[in-house]
């Protein structure tokens, strides 16, 4: 058990608890909730064991599912997100990622914003598609994805800025 492992485990538990106890009950304008627990997937160290990462994402999604009685929609969205993350790392950070030396508290704001937006919108789209589970309600799915997505992006950026450790 290294310090980094313990650190990740603590982040996992804290994010799930904060999500199910606070952020799932905001219900802004009736239905808009931010899903900030996916920060765990977004900010997971890039030089990782990918199989383990996908499995951890599944556990993360499933824990949120158990608390919110939603079957497996969060788990499905999280697993997909973890599996396709490398594509977006390369897309957003280019050469920095190729050396596997990326540090999330040292990247510039623009690429961070693009990276966050892409991952969060994909996660929300998969989640709402499975939750509503009806292709004729595609407009409702897109609407929920957009509004909740904006909320999540704003909160995630604020949280990462507030909690970033300035190590030089």
């Amino acid at each position, binding site marked *: 058990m290294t310090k980094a492992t313990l650190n990740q485990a603590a982040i996992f538990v804290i994010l799930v608890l904060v999500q199910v106890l606070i952020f799932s009950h905001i219900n802004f304008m009736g239905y808009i909730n931010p899903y900030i627990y996916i920060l765990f997937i977004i900010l997971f160290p890039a030089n990782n064991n990918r199989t383990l990462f996908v499995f951890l994402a599944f556990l993360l999604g499933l824990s949120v599912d158990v608390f919110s009685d939603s079957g*497996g929609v969060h788990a499905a969205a999280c697993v997909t997100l973890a599996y396709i993350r490398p594509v977006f790392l390369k897309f957003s950070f280019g050469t920095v990622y190729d050396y596997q030396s990326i540090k999330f508290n040292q990247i510039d704001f623009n690429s961070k914003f693009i990276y966050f937006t892409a991952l969060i919108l994909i996660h929300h789209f998969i989640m709402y598609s499975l939750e509503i589970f009806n292709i004729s309600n595609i407009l409702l799915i897109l609407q929920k994805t957009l509004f909740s997505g904006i909320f999540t992006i704003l909160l995630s950026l604020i949280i990462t800025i507030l909690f970033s450790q300035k190590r030089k």
Partner: protein
Amino acid sequence: MQQIINFVLRNKTFLVFLLLFGLSLFFTIQSHSYHKSKFINSSNFVTGTVYQTANGIGQYFNLTKENKALLEENRMLKSIVHNLDVDTSKTILKDSLKLNPHFKFRTADVYKNSYSQSTNYLTINKGKKDSIKIDHGVITSQGIVGIVENTSQNFSSVLSILNTRSRINAQLKKTNHIGSLVWNTESAEFAQLIDISKFAPVAIGDTIITGGQSTIFPKGILIGTVNSFKIDSGGDSYIVTVKLFNDMTNIGHVYVIENLQASEIKSLQKPKDD
């Protein structure tokens, strides 16, 4: 053989992804089908305890409102009791064991309530230990809330009426035209009453109550009032938008109803194959 093992090792991330994604899809599809005992629900020990702790802190903020609701309910019950024509002092007290009641009421606290998804559930703090079983009805003093769907030792999860899978037998208060109460996910304030015959004299402001046809709710539990209505596309029944009496976004204490004759009615209705 070597090649197969190599293939599996090379693609292990993809295979793990497929496996886990399939598993989550299975859970999702299972959660969309009615009445199957599920592994993934919030009536288990861990989630129950977490919600219990959070509720222990949160419930103090609602005490004034809860007190008012209880007072209002007491006032209503008292006005019924004191307006009864029977002189209560002269009636012979019957042995309550011989009264043979049809319904048994239990109280419970709501630990978790959601209303923003399309499939909403509540978690309450009574379970198998308190004789709560699947298919017991859940109401508040204002109106219906839902049906118990999963139970554990100490907790139960309740299928809210704000759930696309919920379908509750309901009727107009003034006539006996029955329909089904469903929800179209649009607003937590309104539910829809469908399959009401177009011969029914529906008018805006009419009261909707539960019908006595299900074995879950007693007849006459309040649901809401008619907000608007239109003929459905088939042309032979109304779709009525019902404004719920209950504020589904704010539920603290509930009553769980057990129908003591449910099994008897069900066994009678079951088709006998000879």
